[in-house]
């Protein structure tokens, strides 16, 4: 039986309303349902039960850092004293909040080795946009207006080229070497007076640490260009390596990944940007300044070189408060443990899968917080694809890893267990992967028809796009 909220009509004749609004500006009808509170509660509670989530499932979803989101962070972030503050509340009436934000700015600067932080970007991609816009503003302020090109590794996340484009850059893609490191020759060849900068993440999306990063920085800086750091992978090196010390000029952090704020079925996130001192003047507004008892929002007049304002207010405050709570709770030692155990869990899984016969990409390298396997061998043997492995995992209550990203490795799965999974949970994953491997070779249709035990069978995405029924 299909359950839909649109069935809950209960049409009462709406009361006549007294309005001081001319009739021609009003609407006649409002075609929305009128369910009872219990109908709403039941409908959405049941819907929720159809989801996988961290609270119910293991999510070895590479690049996404799906770890435990401590509930205390939700609790403190939604205290009425924070959640009921209007954004136009004057600073004198918001000192508690501003203090948290000021602390978070400082902590993130310390963690990244950068001079200054703006918390306003709403997600990673907006942080990237801010960062590359800052690079643009920097060159322009120096009259260096020819720098229209942004270098980006082929393996980079899709937001990097998309953000560069939104900031008005053209994009040049760079190849990686077979060992996962960047191809420095290609980099040298690409650099030139029209290059504004390079967008990298380290560890890269290949799951390995870019060992030549200092050389890369020297080359890029030598060519007058700047380095952008995509902080989505910061969980791998949290509290150990600082992008600022690697030579990066500006970066964003995905607070919804590394700092354990929840993904909420798609968002919200927060993509705080951090910059070295020469880029700090360009950080987006607003930022918090001041000291205990006298925090305030920096005025626009104080930040004439800023790239400006990316959203109507000061960013996703609720997410920032969760990140603040997370850092406060863990402290410096706890944050370092995060990266240690993220690495331990990833390397443990990588070894385990290799022992089972899975092909590990960059097998001679250490896994960082994530690693890649390829099932091309299974594809050749029985036409099973990475997608089928992913769907079959769902039957075991395990969310699929990221698949077909990075596009460099054929039939790949990018696996990131995160530090909050227990050894028991990892061992179960290994068991399930061993079983799936057997099934792939012996009963491949089991995979191709997976999932079998979910609220729906495999969903027809082609029909979805053809029909395009996207509202009713």
């Amino acid at each position: 039986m299909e359950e839909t909220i649109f069935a809950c009509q209960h049409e009462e004749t709406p009361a006549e309303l007294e309005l001081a609004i001319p009739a021609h500006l009003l609407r006649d009808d409002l075609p929305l349902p009128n369910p009872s509170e219990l109908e709403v509660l039941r409908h959405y509670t049941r819907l929720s039960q159809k989801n996988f989530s961290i609270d119910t499932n293991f999510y070895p979803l590479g690049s996404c850092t799906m770890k435990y989101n401590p509930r205390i962070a939700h609790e403190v972030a939604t205290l009425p004293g924070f959640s009921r503050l209007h954004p136009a509340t004057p600073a004198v009436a918001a000192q508690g909040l501003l203090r948290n934000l000021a602390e978070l700015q400082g902590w993130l600067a310390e963690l990244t080795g950068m001079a200054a932080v703006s918390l306003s970007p709403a997600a990673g991609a907006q942080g990237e946009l801010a960062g590359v816009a800052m690079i643009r503003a920097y060159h322009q302020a120096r009259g260096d207006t020819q720098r229209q090109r942004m270098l980006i590794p082929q393996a980079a996340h899709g937001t990097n080229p998309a953000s560069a484009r939104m900031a008005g850059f053209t994009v040049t893609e760079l190849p990686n070497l077979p060992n996962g490191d960047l191809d420095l020759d290609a980099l040298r060849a690409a650099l030139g007076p029209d290059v504004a900068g390079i967008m990298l993440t380290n560890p890269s999306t290949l799951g390995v640490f870019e060992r030549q990063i200092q050389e890369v920085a020297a080359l890029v800086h030598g060519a007058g260009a700047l380095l952008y750091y995509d902080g989505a992978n910061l969980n791998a090196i949290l509290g150990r390596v600082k992008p600022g010390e690697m030579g990066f000029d500006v970066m964003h952090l995905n607070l919804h990944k590394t700092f354990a704020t929840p993904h909420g079925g798609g968002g919200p996130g927060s993509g705080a940007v951090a910059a070295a001192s020469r880029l700090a003047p360009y950080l987006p507004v607003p930022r918090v300044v001041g000291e205990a008892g006298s925090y305030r929002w920096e005025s626009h007049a104080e930040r004439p070189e800023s790239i400006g304002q990316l959203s109507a207010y000061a960013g996703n405050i609720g997410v920032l408060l969760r990140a603040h709570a997370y850092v406060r709770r863990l402290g410096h030692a706890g944050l370092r443990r995060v990266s240690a155990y993220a690495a331990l869990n990833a390397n443990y899984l990588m070894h385990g899968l290799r022992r089972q016969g899975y092909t590990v990409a960059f097998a001679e390298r250490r896994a960082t917080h994530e690693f890649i396997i390829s099932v091309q061998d299974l594809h050749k043997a029985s036409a099973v694809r990475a997608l089928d492995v992913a769907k079959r995992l769902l039957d075991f209550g395990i969310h699929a890893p990221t698949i077909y990203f990075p596009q460099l490795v054929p039939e790949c799965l990018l696996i990131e267990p995160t530090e909050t999974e227990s050894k028991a949970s990892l061992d179960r994953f290994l068991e399930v992967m061993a079983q799936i491997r057997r099934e792939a070779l012996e009963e491949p249709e089991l995979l191709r028809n997976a999932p079998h035990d979910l609220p729906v069978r495999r969903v027809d995405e082609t029909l979805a796009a053809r029909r395009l029924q996207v509202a009713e």
Partner: protein
Amino acid sequence: MPYIPHDNAETAAMLEAIRVPRLEDLFDEIPPALQSDVSALPEGCSEARLRREMEERAAEQAPLRCFAGAGAYAHHIPAIVWEIARRGEFYSAYTPYQAEASQGTLQLLYEFQSFMTRLTGMEISNASLYDGASALAEACLMALRLRPAAREILVPEGLLPHWRRVLDALLPMQGIRLRSLPQDPHSGRLLLPEENFPEAAALILPQINRFGLLEEVDALAHWAESHNLLRIAVVNPLALALLKAPGDWGEQGADIVVGEGQPLGVPLAAGGPYFGFLTCRRDYVRQLPGRLVAKTVDAAGQVAYCLTLQAREQHIRRAGATSNICTNQGLLVTAATIHLATLGANGLRAAAARAHQQAQRLRALLARLPGVELPHAGPVFNEFVLRLPRPAPSVRDGLLAHGFLAGVPLIELNPADDPHDLLVACTELSEDEDLDGYASALAGVLGEM
């Protein structure tokens, strides 16, 4: 070790399995020169300590009755909205790329899209953008993709200044020019432009404008149609419970509709997370930024939902995507969907009407105070400008001690505005006793000054 489950024996067994002596050795590929620490950060603390500190900070300011608006409003949020939205299955789920494991979120988003198309009178809705202002910037980019030869967007001065600043930050980088259209200084409403704008792709039409006034949207839309400009409507979704849907503006209706979703069940939270919505005509769906959910079937022929037209998005199209957005504002959309369902058509209309009526009442009450004037006469929804005999920021500050956040001084939004003007908003939470309290506190504060 908070949130890390491994005990010493397990850690040892795992290190042993991977033949690595110590945890630190997992980082041995990293050049030693790059390894540092972060001992300047604070020590960790217990959950209890964290709760205590945050409760203390949250309580530093006594609660204020909120009459501030300017795009974000203190509406009632029914208790069930976040009771459901906070459920782990919504709260801690990932983006629903794996459709089979995400039917809950997907069906909910499909319902959201349906609600928003109904509310705005359009055919297509995405599943959220960052906020209203950035959604407007995306709508402008979308309009320019639809009119590739154009280079301009027409922006009435009636647009909220903080939204305008977002356009200023995001659009010129791509070589787009923003042309301002003036408001009538007397009525506060948009003047029908006399010029032609051959390079313009679209006219932005904020209904309600930044003075809280309703615009003559039919006439304006009609003008834009006759100049072959796309119409980008900017709306308050709660106001749409009463106001004409943009899909019905002018002859042809708006082309793209955007707005700030905060009034639909999202806490004020000092400015975010909120969410932007964007709806449009069906023809334009391939230029739509953001995620889109479709209803389809599964392998057994049962109804199922999935993301669709992903080829528009950055993870497929990369530099050619319709937007760089990836993580959006999903959980807020979850709340908004539940909020819309909980209020229903009747509840939404009642809330909107009540906000309007209380604003009318307060406007009349305050206008009676000596020295206080109403600079504009036009119809409003729930917000209006008050011209005070003293600078608005200091009056606002004076009212804090009486427990009121009296509104938003216009000069704090736009330094060029009259420093005596205060933008005052009511919602369905503004009770009669609050209006009376506001009026007498304002009288008192003005008397003392």
